């Protein structure tokens, strides 16, 4: 399941909705990304997330489908927020549910790595010097490529 929304999300509620009525699930892994108040040595007062409606949903669905092909998952959820966020706010949630922990751990990491390099989101940080578009990190591309080799 995927959701692209401006509203916040509640981890406990989402996990309960995913696992309710499915006692075959024995493992749940969740990742939450938060807005930090500092980038390098620059103070961030807020962050605005822009995205490409339509393609965002399409990419997230493709990534999720691939995770289900690679691992035996009973359920999964990706929520990504857009709009203006403040330091400490939740940006992204990835939850994976499987019978055993390994599939849940690995697929959660896979989904985050792919999301970071494929899903069309862009971060604009508000700094004391004005708005600054965040540059992509080489490390994110390397993290994705790691899954292509394995």
């Amino acid at each position, binding site marked *: 399941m995927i959701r692209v929304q401006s509203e916040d999300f509640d981890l406990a509620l989402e996990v309960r909705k995913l696992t309710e009525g499915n006692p075959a699930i024995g493992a749940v892994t969740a990742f939450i990304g938060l807005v930090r108040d500092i980038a390098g040595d620059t103070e961030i007062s807020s962050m605005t997330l*822009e995205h*490409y409606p339509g*393609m965002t949903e399409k990419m997230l669905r493709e990534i999720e489908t691939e995770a289900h092909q690679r691992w035996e998952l009973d359920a999964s959820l990706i929520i990504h927020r857009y709009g203006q966020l403040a330091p400490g706010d939740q940006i*992204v949630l990835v939850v994976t549910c499987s019978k055993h922990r390994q599939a849940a751990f690995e697929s959660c990491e896979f989904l985050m790595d792919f*999301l970071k390099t*494929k*899903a*069309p989101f*862009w971060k604009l940080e508000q700094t004391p010097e004005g708005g600054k*578009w965040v540059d992509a990190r080489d490390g994110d591309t390397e993290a994705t490529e790691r899954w292509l080799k394995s």
Partner: protein
Amino acid sequence: MKILYFAWLRTEIGKSSEDISLPTNVRTVNDLLNWLPELGNSYTQALKKRDLLRIAVNQDYADLDQEIRDSDEVAIFPPVTGG
């Protein structure tokens, strides 16, 4: 053709989308990137960093040699930074 621009490309070109009739000699993504600077100085400036840019055709990532048509939706944007 509908063209969409995102992030700093959007602010440098000064619009988020536009409808353009392609000249007949623009057949591929690469042709489009070569031709866009003819639309004005802001395009020339924005496309100086074209090696960085990513292209999507009908909401899928596309290579430079992919063929495009007037009925396509083409998006041009910097590397993504979500998550």
